[in-house]
């Protein structure tokens, strides 16, 4: 078994307005997907993130001090919006979960394996 990170990517401006039918549909889809992951025993951890404006970046400096900057690490149009950690028997099984994840959240999903322990 290999653990994989499935990250969801959004436009940096993306913010969920739960009052819209679009958002409600997506939330329902993601809930159903989460249930499927859990029922299959593939679920390890997962969750949605607040917008990138909520991020803080900390950097260790050579003198041992740590600097802090407001905002996300990378200045990029696309930012991570949430993620899952799943466990899958092999690449193809993981790809199948990622395919379902992309359909459920209607956005691009990046799949990456964790290093072996």
């Amino acid at each position, binding site marked *: 078994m290999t653990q994989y990170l499935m990250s969801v990517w959004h436009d940096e401006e993306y913010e969920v307005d739960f009052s819209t039918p679009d958002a409600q549909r997506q939330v329902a889809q993601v809930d159903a997907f989460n249930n499927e992951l859990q029922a299959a025993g593939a679920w390890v951890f997962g969750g949605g993130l607040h917008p990138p404006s909520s991020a803080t970046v900390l950097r260790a400096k050579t003198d041992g001090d740590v600097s802090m900057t407001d905002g996300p690490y990378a200045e990029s149009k696309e930012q991570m919006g949430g993620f899952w950690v799943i466990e899958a028997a092999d690449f193809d099984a993981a790809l199948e979960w990622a395919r379902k994840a992309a359909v459920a959240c209607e956005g691009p999903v990046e799949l990456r*394996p964790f290093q072996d322990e």
Partner: protein
Amino acid sequence: MSDDDLTSVFRREAGRCTATLIRVLGEVDLAEDAVAEAFAIAAERWPVHGMPPNPGGWITTTARNRAIDRLRRESSRADRHRAAHRLQALAMEPDPDPELDDLDGLVDVVADDQLRLMFLCCHPALSPDAQVALTLRLLGGLDTGEIARAFVVPEATMAQRIVRAKRKLRDNNASYRIPEAAELPDRLGPVLAAIALIFTEGHTATSGDGLVRVDLSTEALRLGRVLVELMPDEPEAVGLLALMLLTDARRPARTTTDGSMVRLADQDRSLWDQARIREGHALVRACLRRNQPGPYQIQAAIAAVHADAPTSDATDWSQIVALYDQLYAFRPNPVVALNRAIAVGELRGAAEGLAALDALDAERLADYQPYHAARADLLARVGRTAESIEAYEGAIARTTNPAERGFLTRQLHRLDSRR
């Protein structure tokens, strides 16, 4: 036993042995190294002791023993833990002895191994470039330099591409298995495309001195046969093999003794390889009976119509235009439309062919050499000489194959002298 014997054993067996070793060891790099080591031992021993009756079995068994030795010797504690399971499984098998050729009974497994490896190399999560490179490396036994030359990229670039592809498969724990029926539509496509690309590169090489690279087209044919043998119920796999056979049948007539290119219309059809044509025809008929048409089968049918014609003039162009219409329904791309326009030019005359060509999206075909070559030919035939010369110059500028460039240059000079 000569070096040639060893080279031909390598060409024939390296892919098979690597495929088996990957199944046994579960690791691509280790398997490749072990097979290379076994061939190095063979190069020392065979000239002295003679070639064993089953060279492939000898190589596989020797490579397996070497790999086991190496795992025991070199593996770190963590690796050892992982390898322990596999070694345990190996210990259950009869004691491997290279001289006994104990793999005779495993022919089916070996064939399956190749198919599994083909699907691994052409995993849909790899880029098409990486799929082709990995297929040639692991199944074709070509070295990185040869693959790099075939695709006109620096060797370092190709090496990096192959390493990256192998690493991606390893890190992601990609499984070494034949896809299930439900997955086949997604998974078979890249495998067919990779084999077709290898064949096309062999058929009209983008680099090198000659028009063709026989090693590449031969390898593509071999892979096509392996695929059909193992998946006889996949009509598109059969279609691709038929297409390759019918196309390769023309090879002896495609160049003159000095290596110049001869176009289809001018070829001496008595030089065509009749055995390949017969085999290709039989496969096309088998596809027709099944009646599940697909792009490769239709292209094979087009090649079969050409092969049927005793002379170029006797070609059934109406049939070919109809087949291109059918192909366009599957693959509505400008290249198919271009080939259809050329066929229209043969069926209804150059003026109509040119009209069909002019209706295409010229911008999307701007870098496509055959578009300029076809346009040059049609323009010349309707007497628009100046424009034709310009189109020939455009085609020549986009031609990387010397034989093809020679052909186009001769056409250009012929026109120029008539002006």
